[in-house]
């Protein structure tokens, strides 16, 4: 399996799209790690308002402020770059936890069958239907502001998708002869899950998880954009957009200071695009039917 993954990776690397995706993601990871050391004003990036607010309010992009400043005089470049860290953190936590939870529950449902299967599928069905944003609203009303609201509301809906996919693949594996034989031979259930079921379903699940990175990033930013997640001032792209659209004085402000909207949005778009390109190429390699050239030949 590892060898096959390696082949898929090597083939994908031939594609320019995949390379672009990898470069974008690496740059994003680099920025996330080094953000506090490379931005000119890390304090403002974390939301602290500078003392000379009036003098520095809504300055257009210049050499001193590459992306300009926001309505509270903070350096937008520092805020956006620091936002990379939050963005990746959110996505990483959400995908990892949902992935593990989904993998485990999906595999268990397919393996144990009976009532457990019915109940787990029922819960999966319910949680797949949940609107993330409204869940975030409820959590926001009870838990207050914070990145934990964004993350937990996303996990609540995303795990179900992985559970569904894991379940569908695991159902196929459970019915394979050697798994049935292993069961009959009295091999311990945990061992069967670990040795036979998980390795067989993990590859499509990983491909799905990589494809979903972009969607999770967009959704997380959407929750923060509506003011349901992190508090204003937090270095997060969604909330930076929120501040400029709803908070900073509405339409008048952002027609005067379009850089407030352009820069965080471009970062959001680029990182999402990077993730999507990677997922897209991997999926194409896993599914060879799409690889061939085709033209209207009939």
């Amino acid at each position, binding site marked *: 399996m590892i060898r096959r993954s390696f082949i898929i990776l090597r083939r994908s690397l031939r594609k320019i799209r995949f390379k672009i995706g990898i470069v974008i993601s690496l740059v994003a990871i680099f920025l996330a790690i080094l953000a506090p050391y490379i931005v000119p004003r890390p304090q403002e990036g974390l939301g602290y308002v500078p003392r000379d607010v009036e003098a520095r309010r809504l300055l257009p992009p210049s050499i001193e402020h590459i992306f300009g400043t926001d309505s509270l005089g903070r350096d937008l470049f520092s805020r956006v770059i620091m936002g990379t860290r939050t963005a990746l953190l959110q996505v990483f936590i959400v995908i990892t936890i949902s992935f593990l939870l989904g993998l485990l529950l999906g595999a268990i449902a397919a393996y144990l069958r009976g009532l457990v299967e019915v109940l787990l599928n029922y819960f999966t069905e319910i949680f797949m239907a949940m609107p993330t944003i409204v869940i975030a*609203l409820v959590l926001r*009303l009870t838990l207050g502001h914070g990145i934990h609201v964004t993350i937990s509301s996303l996990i609540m809906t995303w795990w179900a998708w992985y559970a569904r996919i894991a379940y569908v693949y695991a159902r196929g594996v459970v019915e394979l002869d050697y798994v049935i034989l292993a069961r009959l031979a009295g091999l311990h259930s945990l061992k069967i899950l670990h040795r036979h079921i998980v390795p067989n379903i993990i590859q499509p699940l990983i491909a799905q998880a990589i494809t979903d990175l972009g969607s999770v990033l*967009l959704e997380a930013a959407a929750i923060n954009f509506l*003011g349901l997640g992190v508090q204003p001032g937090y270095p997060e792209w969604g909330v930076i957009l929120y501040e400029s659209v*709803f908070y900073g004085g509405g339409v008048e402000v952002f*027609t005067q200071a379009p850089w407030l909207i352009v820069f965080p949005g471009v970062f959001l778009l680029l990182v999402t695009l990077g993730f999507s390109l990677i997922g897209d190429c991997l999926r194409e390699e896993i599914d060879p039917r799409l690889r061939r050239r*085709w*033209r209207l030949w009939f």
Partner: protein
Amino acid sequence: MTISLNYIFKRIILALCVIVGIVVFSYVLILATPGDPAVKWAGNPRGPGATRAVQLAREELGLDKPIYVQVAIFMYNFFTGNLGFSIAYKGLPVVQAIITSFMSTFELTLIAYIISVPIALYLGLYSALKRGGIFDSIIQPASVVLASTPTYWLATLLLLAFTISKISVYGTASPRLIAETEFNTITGSYLLDSILQGNVRVFVDSLLRMIPPALAISVYPIGALTRLVRVLVAESLLEDYVKASIALGVERGIIIRHFVVRSIIPSLVQISGLSFTYSLIDAMVVESIFGRRGLGSLLISALNTADFKIAITLIAFIAIFYIIVNTLVDILQAIIDPRVRL
């Protein structure tokens, strides 16, 4: 076609079970989150009427009774639409507030899909037919970009562009026009209401105002569905019956229309149904940017007034909508596929 209603019946029973589960889950959400459930349900009231409001909420939820009775009471209240009055929209019953807002969001999403599905079908079809060609090599990355564009960001840019060019697209309809023509909305859907009242000016105005937000919403389905159609068409072109009909000299146009497109429609319908609810959430965000009435503005006002009742009902409502759409789409798919014996 012989239809034994067995499949449809089973599918509906399953959907009903899930809907019951959704309502129970919503109630559990009231109990499980920290804080007094009665206070939350009453919307953190303050001032002189607070004690009375909390007392009413306590009775409504039956908090002194065993949990299963509480759930039963909540469920009864939910399905009879007796959920009290919303704080966000003062005086309006919760159910009415949600339904009128929903209609407005629904019509916007519907317009977005009317725009995006044909475009996605066309782009996906031609990029699959000429895979590896120039058209495909433009469309393929473009569709990834479209599907990765943050909808709300695009909506903001659109609003920015229209504001700069001094074209008013803010709001659902021009307030002056509404005042002049004495238009009032009943269902929440301005298009539907203006047709019912024969009000052409409001119809045209609200339709025009709908286009920019609908465009912003349609970006995701265009990108995602184009890619889906491309995959489906590529698979369909490898079908034996396509090959066989080519060999029998069937014209290209007929093969594309009646063989390829016909075979991908069931899957396209199903996935469009799935992504429709996703776009409904997108529409909520976009609406709040364009200052339109709808679920988005309801959400924001529920946030500002700490209206837990609206929030919980909204969760159940959207989840149920999702289940209903999926069930309908599954049934529809079964009906249009002659192979599925119903």
